[in-house]
């Protein structure tokens, strides 16, 4: 009898030795003359348990983790392959693990369960049902359904997806495009990566539906080159979708056309900005464009273009299958549906947590993240990537909702949450925000290009105790100039983490001054 074992093929599992575990299991099985079938699934997003090995049994799956290659012999001795839970790494039914059980998984319902590139697996778990439904509808009806769901762009700007689609739908053009923004450059985020590595066919399906809705026949996924595993998995999924007639000239005999291609970026954070991304796709330097014209009207190669984040497009199959109401029933206020939060940084239990909008940041950290990895108390939490604010403990009771975050001068962004313990020097973090802007500014507008360099210099002066009061005033002034005068979010939002670091953690200035003068004396 063959034993079916699941070991993820996602980046984090591989980064923690997943491939060595696979080799060790195959070798051990061969020596013991056991018939083992290994399925490379996607991760369930409980990254602190990776590599998470799961075994199929008559009563569902049994999980073991985190498994290292050196554990494999003992696991075989304990007959883990039969689902025996006598080994200390046994975790029982993975879906009963509280971290997973407490989530509301709409977008990530299949993650970790299926073979990500298998069309059969995908269909056996509700895959392509949204597409089947969409193929029977006129484009306007699909746009209306997405509008009714309340879905807002998950890239960070939270613009209503249905309204963007309506604009493209209303344009008449010989060619329209669907562009998926998979340039997930924010530190602390990995939800797009997990979609592409754990359930890429859902993104394919979402893009086809988007094409049907607005009348576009060509899609591009603009993927960052820092994601080699996602690139591989996504390409396999697309090839399988072509082979099964879900992409190409005649989608499932409907006569509808949709072609899809992955295009690699080349390490430029700015290309996550939609107009810069379009320039890059056209083969140019990723310089930000002026708006208007909106990309929805004059986008890729001057044609009407939907540019949506991976998570926005990935939410669409659920909405078209289960209905807009089922999606809109989750959430709070104007933030409808779920957001996959990403717990990162100094946490014991980092990973992906998909929840309806509404719980507070503190609840999310307490219920899922646990304590810090270092064991030291938490001090600052950066939410929303490198352009997001650093939140002091007094703000951790803010509900996770676009408007509530905006009200405290912070951003929810793409849902990345990075926890720092008390060893952090917040003046150093502020300096890094400016330094990052120096490295990644496209250079088109002066406040961002020059302002960031001046920002690093002024922060260096503040940190070394040089005329602190005057330089803090100067930094404030510089930040205002960047906020008001920059062309895009890179320059206008870099001041957010900088200002929050100095406003809420000002005690670090004196510490930095003291350590700077101690260094000077030592010389």
């Amino acid at each position: 009898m063959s034993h079916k074992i699941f070991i993820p093929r996602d980046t984090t599992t591989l980064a923690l030795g997943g491939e060595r575990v696979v080799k060790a299991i195959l070798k051990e099985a061969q020596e013991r003359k056991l018939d083992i079938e290994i399925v490379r699934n996607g991760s369930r997003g409980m990254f602190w348990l990776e590599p998470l090995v799961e075994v199929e049994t008559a009563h569902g799956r049994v999980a073991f983790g985190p498994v290292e290659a050196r554990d494999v012999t003992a696991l075989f001795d304990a007959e883990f392959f039969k689902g025996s839970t006598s080994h200390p790494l046994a975790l029982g039914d993975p879906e009963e693990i509280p971290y997973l059980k407490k989530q509301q998984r709409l977008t990530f319902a299949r993650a970790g369960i299926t073979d990500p590139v298998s069309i059969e697996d995908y269909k056996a778990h509700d895959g392509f049902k949204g597409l089947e439904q969409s193929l029977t509808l006129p484009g306007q009806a699909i746009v209306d359904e997405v509008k009714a769901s309340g879905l807002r762009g998950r890239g960070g700007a939270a613009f209503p997806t249905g309204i963007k689609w309506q604009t493209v739908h209303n344009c008449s053009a010989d060619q329209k495009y669907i562009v998926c923004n998979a340039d997930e450059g924010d530190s602390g985020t990995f939800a797009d990566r997990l979609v592409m590595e754990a359930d890429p066919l859902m993104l394919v399906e979402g893009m086809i539906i988007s094409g049907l809705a607005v009348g576009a026949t060509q899609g591009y996924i603009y993927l960052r080159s820092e994601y080699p595993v996602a690139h591989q998995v996504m390409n396999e999924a697309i090839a399988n979708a072509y082979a099964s007639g879900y992409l190409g000239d005649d989608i499932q005999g409907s006569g509808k056309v949709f072609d899809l291609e992955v295009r690699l970026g080349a390490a430029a954070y700015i290309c996550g900005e939609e107009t810069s991304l379009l320039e890059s796709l056209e083969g140019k330097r990723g310089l930000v464009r002026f708006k208007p014209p909106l990309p929805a009207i004059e986008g890729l190669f001057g044609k009407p273009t939907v540019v949506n984040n991976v998570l926005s497009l990935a939410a669409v199959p659920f909405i078209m299958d289960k209905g807009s109401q089922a999606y809109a029933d989750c959430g709070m206020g104007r933030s409808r549906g779920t957001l996959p939060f990403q717990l990162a940084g100094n946490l014991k239990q980092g990973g992906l947590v998909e929840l309806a909008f509404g719980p507070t940041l503190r609840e999310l950290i307490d219920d899922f993240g646990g304590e810090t990895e270092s064991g030291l108390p938490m001090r600052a939490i950066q939410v929303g990537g490198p352009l997001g604010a650093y939140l002091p403990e007094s703000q951790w009771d803010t509900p996770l909702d676009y408007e509530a975050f905006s009200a405290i001068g912070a951003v929810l962004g793409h849902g990345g949450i990075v926890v720092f313990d008390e060893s952090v020097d917040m003046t150093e973090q502020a300096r890094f925000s400016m330094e990052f802007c120096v490295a990644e500014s496209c250079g088109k507008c002066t406040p961002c290009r020059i302002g960031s360099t001046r920002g690093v210099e002024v922060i260096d002066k503040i940190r070394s105790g040089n005329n602190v009061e005057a330089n803090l005033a100067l930094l404030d002034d510089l930040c205002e100039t960047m906020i008001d005068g920059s062309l895009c979010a890179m320059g206008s939002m870099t001041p957010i983490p900088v200002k929050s670091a100095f406003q809420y953690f000002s005690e670090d200035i004196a510490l930095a001054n003291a350590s700077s003068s101690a260094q000077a004396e030592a010389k």
Partner: protein
Amino acid sequence: MSDKAKWDPQAVQGIIASLQHKPGALLPILHGIQNALGYIPPDSVPMIADALQQTRAEIHGVITFYHHFRLTPPGRIKLEVCRAEACQARGSRNLESHVKEKLGIDYHHTTLDREFSLEPVYCLGNCACGPTIRVDDDIIGRITPEKFDLLVDELTTTALEIR
């Protein structure tokens, strides 16, 4: 230096010809050349410019805009260290200085024996399990200075065995 880095105009011409029909072909062409040769030889710039009917300045401008593309041959192993916030929160600043000291080079440089090229990277998406580095196409998490030293030994020892 590895064989990969030898200048081969015919190979470059073949890559250009196979991709130039694509809309927005420049990035795919640059990736194609760098994947094959490890870098984009300056002599390939006029060839690309001719094929795409653009100026050499335009092609050069695109190559230098993106951190990923390089105009000089890399060392045998390309090493990237994540500098972004989630890794910082898990000790990457300490790792960064250790890596530079161990290899004796700063970012954007190659060791004298041409074994390692060191580049910074802003996020590899392994943010729950950092600090993270990338060795060619392999991403490795929870790297400590001690694990880094073992890895360097492993990488350089294997090379000797192959030779």
